[in-house]
């Protein structure tokens, strides 16, 4: 089984952090590239929403978290799950619908979970996980665990009523939540201009009394630093924060391919964002030798995870009726 994400030592050696960030980013990128490569084989019978291009946000936030902290993600959740230390082998098996999957073949790509790594289950109904994450944070506060919850959501999710309701409640009760909006400018194929009257999302959120900050480039290290600092206050009862991270989904909304021939967004924008590729950027911070070693390790882990998924059995039909009730 793959290693879980380490809790961040307070004074991480700079090169240690660089290695960690590169390793996590590169790993997520390669996993999703492999999923896309495998997809036409029909072995993965699960709708996959790839994060390729957006990984820096999950990695930056999760690197600032400790093991006891939880993350709440969306159906576009591979990056969140892996960045927080969710088991790669169990995720692969889940995509294959196998009994060894992280949800025992009962969830699929859109419903990843790893409670050991504190990855709360992801949901395919947009916005539904936001109040759930807030409730998990309420419990952390009441139970005095000192843990916080990082709640990932898309730009589209901010339009759901429960988003506003959740912000208000989290602020009112000073709950330990890092709201992370991965703003890739689209909800499926619909641009922000057809959904928002203004793009001042952070200003809207700030009116609830929640400090809000926008990251125009979603630089992994900058996000990490911001969250790490904010957590010092949050763990002392400082209440929630919000970050809006502008980003770009390189691939199509769902599935392994691209969607630039559909005409609703331009390849020029992709090129612009590829210049800010979080993986390439992180690669520059480590030596070629270190990179080669990390890359080899990642390839071996991915190959093992795929082999594990392929060799694992499907659940037996009797499993259909289990776990309907606790």
């Amino acid at each position: 089984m793959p290693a879980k994400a380490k809790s961040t030592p307070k004074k991480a050696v700079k090169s240690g952090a660089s290695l960690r960030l590169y390793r996590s980013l590169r790993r997520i990128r390669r996993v999703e590239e492999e999923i896309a490569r495998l997809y036409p084989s029909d072995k993965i019978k699960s709708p996959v929403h790839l994060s390729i291009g957006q990984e820096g946000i999950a990695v930056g936030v999760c690197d600032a978290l400790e093991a006891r902290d939880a993350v709440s993600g969306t159906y576009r959740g591979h990056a969140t799950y892996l960045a927080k230390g969710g088991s790669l082998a169990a995720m692969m098996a889940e995509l294959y619908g196998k009994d060894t999957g992280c949800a025992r073949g009962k969830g699929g790509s859109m419903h990843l979970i790893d409670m050991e790594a504190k990855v709360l289950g992801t949901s395919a109904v947009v916005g539904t996980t936001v109040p759930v994450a807030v409730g998990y944070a309420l419990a952390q506060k009441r139970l005095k665990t000192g843990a916080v919850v990082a709640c990932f959501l898309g730009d589209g999710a901010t339009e759901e009523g429960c988003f506003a309701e959740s912000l208000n409640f989290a602020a009112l009760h000073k709950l330990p939540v890092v709201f992370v909006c991965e703003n890739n400018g689209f909800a499926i194929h619909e641009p922000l201009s057809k959904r928002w009257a203004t793009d001042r999302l952070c200003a809207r959120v700030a009116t609830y009394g929640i400090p809000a900050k926008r990251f125009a480039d979603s630089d992994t290290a900058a996000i990490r630093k911001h969250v790490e600092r904010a957590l010092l206050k949050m763990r002392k009862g400082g209440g929630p924060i919000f970050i809006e991270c502008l980003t770009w989904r390189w691939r199509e909304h769902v599935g392994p391919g691209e969607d630039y021939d559909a005409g609703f967004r331009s390849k020029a924008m992709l090129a612009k964002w590829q210049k800010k590729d979080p993986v390439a950027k992180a690669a520059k911070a480590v030596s070629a030798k270190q990179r080669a070693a990390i890359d080899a390790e990642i390839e071996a882990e991915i190959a093992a995870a795929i082999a594990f998924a392929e060799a694992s059995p499907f659940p037996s039909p009797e499993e259909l009726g289990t776990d309907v009730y606790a």
Partner: protein
Amino acid sequence: MSTPKPPPTPKLAWPGRVEDGRRVLKYVDALSEAVALEMARDENVFLFGLDVDDHKAIQGSTRGLLDRFGPARVFTTPLSEDAMTGVAIGAAMAGMRPIHVHIRMDFLMLCMNQLVNIAAKARYMYGGQIKVPLVVRTIIGKSWGQGAQHSQGLHSMFMHVPGLKVCAPSNAHDAKGALIAAIRDDNPVVFVEHRLLYATEAFVAEAPYVVAPGRARVCRFGRDVTIVGVSNMVVEALRAADLLKEAGVAAEVIDPIWLAPLDSDTIVESVRRTRKLVIVDNGWSMCGAGAEIAARVAEACAGEGPLQIQRLGFAPTPCPPSPPLEAAFYPNPATIAAAAYKLARPDAPAWMPDAAKAELAYQLQFKGPF
């Protein structure tokens, strides 16, 4: 605006006969054709909902509408289903005829408050002064790992509420006629489509026509057992009837088309002859459409002699994505045929048709992810 007189609904004809002005049309194209005809006929009709105007056009079912009618009448919305349902209701109260589209029925759970607490009862609780001519189009998903939140058939929740009408057409002919009827109806209608039916074809007249609320269709006659199917389960029940025929059992297959108002008379009339009823729902059996149909038949036929009823539906679990679990979750032509056989031939040994023969083309041709 004058309403053209609708031609009578062909009650007994299973769509499939070539008649004047009919041609083969896909279910998905029948839906967009129905909306286009009504939008052209009545300028108060508009269509909105998440992604109705993008290049995928709700799996093709809104194809061409934006080009023809423009962005004021065909438009996407923010991800705000709850509020958008209220918006639709308000516009309907003001005399417009909105069609609110949801790509999955699961998302209707966000609309429940507005639909149940306002749309369904506005007419009544405001003393008959207003009406809410609203159509909520929605699609049940199936297969390719749709999973627990993209596969639910929740029509019975809406059947439960007075003031709402519910329709679940199983073929292109009814999809067109019933959608036109729904748009012209002065009440809120929850219009339930099925993703796997989108590519199925039937003969469909070019002119507008209505498949009116509250009229079921006998799709196939048979004397041994009555099978009622809901939504795509009509197609599966017809396949089951083929298999049963090979085993010497003549099944009568009925499609209610509209679940509310529900034409139980047609079903009761059939069961009076067969005394045996199998109801196959595309949803859970507990408090489902099948439960309502069974209760009505039992009430109507009580004291008339022996009566056997069997419900089939989703397994009482959320829908799993893993292929072997998903296969066990749904009724299929083989399980339907076996259940009907058991009622029709109680003394014969249990019989299960060849699984390969039970596979349906409309399922095999569906490729994911959506």
